[in-house]
């Protein structure tokens, strides 16, 4: 085993948690939509990338970073709702493959669309955080710390929203039992649209936060989407909290495995961990075992 110092380990874990925060965003977006419509949104990463480009454009036009940040969240929310209303509402009872084809099409539309509008060249994306932390540490960089804080605040707000507001409760009810939800007067279609809006907004935050790290370009979210998916599956597709935790785990396992086993095998080790967890918990760590009603 290579000689590893404690400081190095803490650095890797913290860095992993920071990247994991972004995986968690994507994992949560994917799970929210999965719970509502029982399908994986492959285009979640591309939607986030497109959102990041919109922010970049606003900043390029001279907008203040945080103004652009919040306008982008609002636009992504509206865009997500529009995608549900225009494309997925008519497909409500369509077969699985119809959904897969539409998701792939969306993926391609956002990817090529971003390339067409902003070109496929790699761009720098600004970090909103100061270059120096107000305190001395070598354990974590300012952007990593800031990005983790932003994501954690967002996750906290989302938790509070679902746990304590009537609309949050109605959204959970609509996703879990649509017929019963209609019978208490909940417009299930509206709740689905809100869910898409929220998922798109969460993804947008992830995209904007990771863009300074991976640089802005149409394919920036590919790897992140895969880790986000893996996090969602490991955490449990039926458990938003589990998906978030799975995302953070994905972020940490890879660099830590890299330290102990060497960078050639770090991805392999991460995958071995995933498969092992799934062998023992096929529905993910926090997923419910789905019993099909007949």
């Amino acid at each position, binding site marked *: 085993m290579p000689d590893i110092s404690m400081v190095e380990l803490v650095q890797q874990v913290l860095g992993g948690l920071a990247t994991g925060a972004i995986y968690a965003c994507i994992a949560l977006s994917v799970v929210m939509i999965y719970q509502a419509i029982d399908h994986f949104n492959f285009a979640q990463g591309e939607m986030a990338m497109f959102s990041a480009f919109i922010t970049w454009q606003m900043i390029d036009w001279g907008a203040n970073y945080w103004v652009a940040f919040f306008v982008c969240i609002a636009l992504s929310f509206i865009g997500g709702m529009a995608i549900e209303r225009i494309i997925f509402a008519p497909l409500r009872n369509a077969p699985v493959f119809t959904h897969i084809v539409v998701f792939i099409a969306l993926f391609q539309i956002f990817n090529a669309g971003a390339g067409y509008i902003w070109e496929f060249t790699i761009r720098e994306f600004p970090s909103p955080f100061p270059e120096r932390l107000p305190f001395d540490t070598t354990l974590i960089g300012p952007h990593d710390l800031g990005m983790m804080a932003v994501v954690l605040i967002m996750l906290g707000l989302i938790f509070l929203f679902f746990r304590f507001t009537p609309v949050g409760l*109605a959204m959970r009810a609509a996703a*879990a039992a649509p017929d019963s939800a209609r019978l*208490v*007067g909940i417009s299930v279609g509206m709740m689905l649209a809100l869910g898409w809006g929220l998922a798109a907004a969460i993804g947008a935050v992830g995209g904007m936060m990771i863009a300074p790290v991976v640089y802005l370009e149409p394919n920036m979210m590919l790897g992140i989407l895969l880790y986000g998916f893996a996090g969602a599956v490991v955490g449990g597709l039926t458990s938003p909290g589990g998906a978030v935790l799975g995302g953070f785990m994905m972020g940490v396992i890879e660099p830590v495995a890299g330290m102990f086993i060497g960078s050639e095998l770090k991805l392999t080790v991460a995958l071995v961990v995933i498969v092992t967890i799934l062998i023992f918990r096929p529905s993910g760590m926090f997923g419910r075992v789905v019993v099909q009603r007949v």
Partner: protein
Amino acid sequence: MAFLDVANLEAFYGPIQALHGISFSLEQGGITTILGANGAGKTTTLRAICGMVKTNGQVSFDGESIAGKKTEKIVRYGVAHVPEGRGTFVRVSTEDNLRLGAYSRRDAGAVAEDMERVYGYFPRLKERRNQQAGTLSGGEQQMLAVGRALMLRPRLMLLDEPSFGLAPLIVQELFEILRVINQEEGVSMLLVEQNANLALNLADHAYLLETGRVVISGTSEEISSDETVRQSYLGY
């Protein structure tokens, strides 16, 4: 015009027609029951009134046509459906289930009062207010379903086999409470039941459905003394 007026109602599941033009009505404050064997169209009738299946024909509630409207809109007229299978939101608490029942209301103060009223009818629900609703017993979930419907402050309750799968004692208790709700709060009820004795006991009017058609109708006394009904549905 009656409080609930159903005329020539047809219902379809895809290409299959489940109701063949049924007509019936219900007076305000009354309890009407729909009897019939399995597959006669009892559940479909309730689902059709609530816009949960594709229908043709007229349904008017308190003078307003509700046929063809969306379920979530019909609910807002004060029509509370206690569905087959109870429709529990299993992953949220008992109290959140009741809260969801009042989702379409905006009068928070009155909602809080109504919640206490429901707990008054069903003290067991109060004991289990913070428990995940999916862990309640069948009887408790049925009480929760009735409680959730009450949270709407309904003018009409549609009850789909409330006795299904419950122990006789619990059924008796539940039907007693339904009678109280009807008499003290003036909530009209349309009751679907397999257990004809039970239903005729509670209801003032009855309709007998056979394969999607009304074959006999009348007051509960008339229906109870009808020879065919007695032999086929009451079993004596």
